[in-house]
């Protein structure tokens, strides 16, 4: 890895363009094949342009369940920098040709984003991306065993921020040899509520502190020549996770009644995870075009993440050990664990054009995991004063392979048909549940899929594309895996006149597994239609809309845990979904014509969880000066659920602000 990094860092010194005289004499295909990432900036002086949207958001309500509102919408009140962007163009600068900076959602919004791009032709390309996303999830109906006692506090919720930084610097874009370096960080912190559960006797909702961070570094070099391309990349990650659970309050948990005559409770808890991980990864991809009738692409990818864990737990209260039915009042546990997961993947793909109207695609890929781990757990309770150490190990090995061949034939200039075959096979080894006596479970996968499709093109007016898959499975991993399935998609676009176009899509998926212990039947159908009307290229008015009708049904046999009586897990969803938008620019006040947008979306469903979710929107944009616009927006969010009516909410949101333009 070090050698590669050193080579990568030195490569800019050696990366040379092809000798000029020879290059100028060669035909185009012999030239550097890739266009530069940025076009040449227009000649001229430095140009600065940009805009900023400053506004204030008012949130009315929300009426109904505030936690559900925050889970789904989470828009807050107050002053906001809703959008900003800045562009600097300066072809005469020796440091940059163009710099663009834009951002959105600043001021405490749940989705903040900033992006910076800078480039200098033939010298560098730099990209920086920052996202800050609020994750709030506190639905009363989720993981809440006390809901029937009118306790609307979920036992599994969180309020946290996840942030993501991505930065990449590419040297000499467009040259034949292009080194690059990149760094990214993903981290999250916040708090939540989670449960402390020793076993099935009782569980106690407690405070949960969350913090995790992943740093990723990578460097590589991209070689692009006329007949082939190779990209080599080496990278690594470091990871940390310092989650903790704690409480010092008396907590009777979810069990209201005594167990064997004693009330179970928790009076104190300190539980801490300290996870540290690292990984190396390598990537080598290549394309090769030896002759005009064949393209070859191949990749080899390898990663080896590993983690080390230190865990400690101290809890006091009154607990019971369900395997011995002994009660105890305190417990101390500590554990160390480590795991490693070498992961190799590779593929080779061919596209062959043996005849003018025939294309053959052939691809093969493999993906191989192998997780090996061990755990040492020390346990000390008042009942058993001596510390008991247990050692356990686990493994998971997965081999997945896929091979696919397909032939596309242009029967006519307007019609292409295709047919092919996919074979998916693999095997997996994992440790069986302890209750099954340990040992290992083995699974195998074997599936044959026939592929069919056609595309018809009638000028630029009408385009129809259809795909179908018919699968037959001999072995599958899980009860819910698709076995003998049939899948089809039909898409069409019709441009009736220049200003009016229609689209349509129909997709279907059916699956059946007649095994008497499974009896899995699934059917999913979706039909969508849409249109766009934009006379005079939408100068005055644009109307677009789409509507989707979807039905989903699934039935699968399972056994009730307490008495093993067979039951059926049935899920139904019959939904209507639509979105629409009307953009109108006023015909008066040509230079400062106000623009009105009306639209929104709706979703309404029946079945297992009937839900209605509406989100209409009205926007008004009023230019008052060449460089100043006034904008306002009204949006409504409404959620209602028939079976969980206490989670419904509705809210009106107003935004008013100024757009300043340079």
């Amino acid at each position, binding site marked *: 890895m070090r050698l590669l990094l050193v080579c990568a860092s030195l490569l800019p010194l050696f990366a040379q363009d092809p000798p000029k005289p020879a*290059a*100028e004499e060669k035909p185009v*295909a*012999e030239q550097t*094949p890739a*266009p*530069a990432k940025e076009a040449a900036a*227009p000649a001229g002086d430095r140009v600065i342009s940009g805009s900023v949207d400053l506004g204030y958001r008012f949130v009315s309500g929300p009426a109904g369940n505030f936690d559900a509102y925050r889970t*789904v919408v989470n828009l807050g009140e107050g002053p906001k920098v809703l*959008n900003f*962007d800045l562009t600097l163009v300066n072809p005469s600068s020796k440091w940059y040709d163009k710099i663009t900076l834009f951002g*959105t959602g600043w001021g405490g919004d749940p*989705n903040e984003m900033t992006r910076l791009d800078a480039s200098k032709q033939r010298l560098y390309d730099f990209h920086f991306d920052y996202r800050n996303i609020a994750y709030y999830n506190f639905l009363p109906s*989720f*993981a809440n065993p006390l809901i029937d006692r009118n306790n609307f506090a979920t036992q*599994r919720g969180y309020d946290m921020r*996840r942030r993501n930084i991505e930065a990449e610097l590419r040297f000499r874009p467009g040259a034949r040899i292009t080194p690059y370096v990149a760094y990214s960080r993903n981290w999250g912190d916040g708090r939540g509520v989670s*449960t402390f*559960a020793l076993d099935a006797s009782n569980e106690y909702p407690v405070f949960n502190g969350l913090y995790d961070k992943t740093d990723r570094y990578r460097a590589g070099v991209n070689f692009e020549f006329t007949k082939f391309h190779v990209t080599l*990349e080496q*990278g690594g990650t470091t990871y940390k996770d310092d989650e903790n659970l704690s409480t010092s309050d008396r907590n009777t948990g979810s069990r209201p009644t005594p167990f064997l005559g004693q009330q179970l409770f928790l009076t104190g808890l300190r539980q801490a995870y300290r996870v540290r991980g690292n990984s190396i990864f390598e990537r080598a991809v290549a394309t090769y075009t*030896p*002759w*005009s009738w064949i393209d070859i692409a191949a990749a080899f990818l*390898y990663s080896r*993440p590993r*983690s080390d864990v230190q865990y400690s737990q101290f809890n006091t209260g009154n607990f019971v050990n369900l395997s011995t039915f002994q009660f105890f009042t305190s417990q101390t546990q500590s554990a160390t*664990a480590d*795991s*490693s997961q070498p*992961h190799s*993947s590779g593929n080779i*793909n*061919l596209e062959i054009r043996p005849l003018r109207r025939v294309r*053959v695609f052939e*691809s093969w890929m493999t993906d191989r995991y192998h997780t090996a781990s061990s*755990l040492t757990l020390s346990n000390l309770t008042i009942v058993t004063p001596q510390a008991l150490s247990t050692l356990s190990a*686990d493994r*998971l090995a997965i081999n997945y392979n896929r091979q696919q*061949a397909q032939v596309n034939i242009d029967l006519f200039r307007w019609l292409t048909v295709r047919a092919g075959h996919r074979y998916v096979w693999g095997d997996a080894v994992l440790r*069986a549940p302890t209750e099954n006596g340990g*040992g290992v*479970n083995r699974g*195998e996968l*074997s599936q*044959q899929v026939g592929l069919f499709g056609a595309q018809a093109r009638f000028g*630029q007016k009408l385009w129809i594309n259809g795909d179908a898959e018919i699968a*037959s499975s*001999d072995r599958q991993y*899980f009860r819910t895996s698709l076995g*003998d399935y049939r899948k089809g998609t039909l898409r069409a676009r019709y441009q009736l006149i220049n200003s009016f176009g229609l689209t*349509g899509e129909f997709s279907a998926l059916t699956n059946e597994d007649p095994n008497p*212990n499974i009896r899995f039947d699934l059917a999913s159908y979706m039909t969508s239609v849409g249109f766009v009307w934009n006379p005079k290229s939408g100068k005055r008015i644009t109307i677009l809309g789409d509507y989707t009708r979807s039905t989903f049904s699934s039935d699968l046999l*399972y056994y*009730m*845990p*307490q008495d093993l009586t067979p039951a059926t897990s049935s899920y139904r969803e019959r939904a209507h979904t639509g979105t629409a938008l009307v953009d109108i620019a006023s015909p008066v006040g040509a230079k400062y014509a106000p623009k009105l947008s009306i639209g929104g979306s*709706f979703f309404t*469903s029946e079945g297992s969880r009937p*839900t209605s979710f509406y989100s209409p929107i009205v926007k008004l944009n009023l230019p008052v000066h060449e460089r100043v616009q006034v904008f306002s927006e009204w949006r409504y969010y409404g959620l209602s659920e028939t079976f969980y009516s206490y989670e419904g909410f509705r809210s009106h949101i107003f935004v008013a602000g100024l757009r300043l333009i340079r």
Partner: protein
Amino acid sequence: MRGSPRWKACAVLTRWSWALLAVVSALALAPRPVFGQTNPGAQAAAPTPAAPAPASGPATYVGSEMCQACHEDISKAFRANRHHVMEVDKKRGWDGKACESCHGPGSKHAESTSADDIRNPAKLAPRESERTCLQCHANQPTNVGRVQSGHGRSEVACVSCHSVHKTHGGDRGRARIMRINEECAACHASTWAQFQKPFRHRLPEGVMSCVDCHNPHGSLLPRSIQTVNANEPGCFRCHGDKRGPFTFEHAPVRMDGCQSCHQPHGSQNPRMLTRHEERFVCLECHANIGTTGIAKSGGTLGGVPPAFHDFRSARFLACSTCHIKVHGSHIDRAFLR
């Protein structure tokens, strides 16, 4: 099922596709071109005239200035397009005639002004249109997954998504993300409909785009899912805490991916789960049928012996109330902590 006529037919196909791979490999290693085709370098040395060559002789290159005389609006927009580098970069061999690098020599068209006398990639069959682009872009990193991708196999031409003339320099930030999503939704309308459900990734808000999770040019993983850390699912780019490796892995996360329990595009169920109540997500796999030995012909992974959880009690209706580390646990095989 094995033994059925459909299975046998598929097995025959498998054998033939392996034979095809062997033949193709042999041909690829052959010392000279076959099928009477020439190499791309030779083709490019004498670019094929776009329009059918008239009896009077092939069309010739006239330069971009000639094109601009009639197509001024396109020419103006093109200056801010990335492809404009073809016009100014002498090393690429098309300086001064970038238009004709895709449209072919334009002398006939310039004389007749007839659309029939010029090649228009947008009106060509996808195969031909794609070759026009791949003349330069074939050997680039973006092309690695093309053969494996659904777009490549379904003949979705480059120009279906990419605008070669226009510039989207004005689309930045949220506007650019929304434009990408609109582009995808134009064909994948029913997928876009799923994003209108209450529990979803934030695409309608314009803070994520389809390409954050999918690589439209193709990927190693099914459904063109983006990869991160070389070969790991792109989901871990943002959800790094679910990556592991864990001491005790939850096998479906590795074998079937997040979508075995979640609907990542959107769901009416909390946490984008596939079922309205969490216990059904779990019980459909963990059906209390112990499975040992090779899981085939009816045996499947995930079976567990009776746990004696009494489902008449509300405490057992949501599995993750206790099994909190359901994505994988560092400490407990039952995912309790």
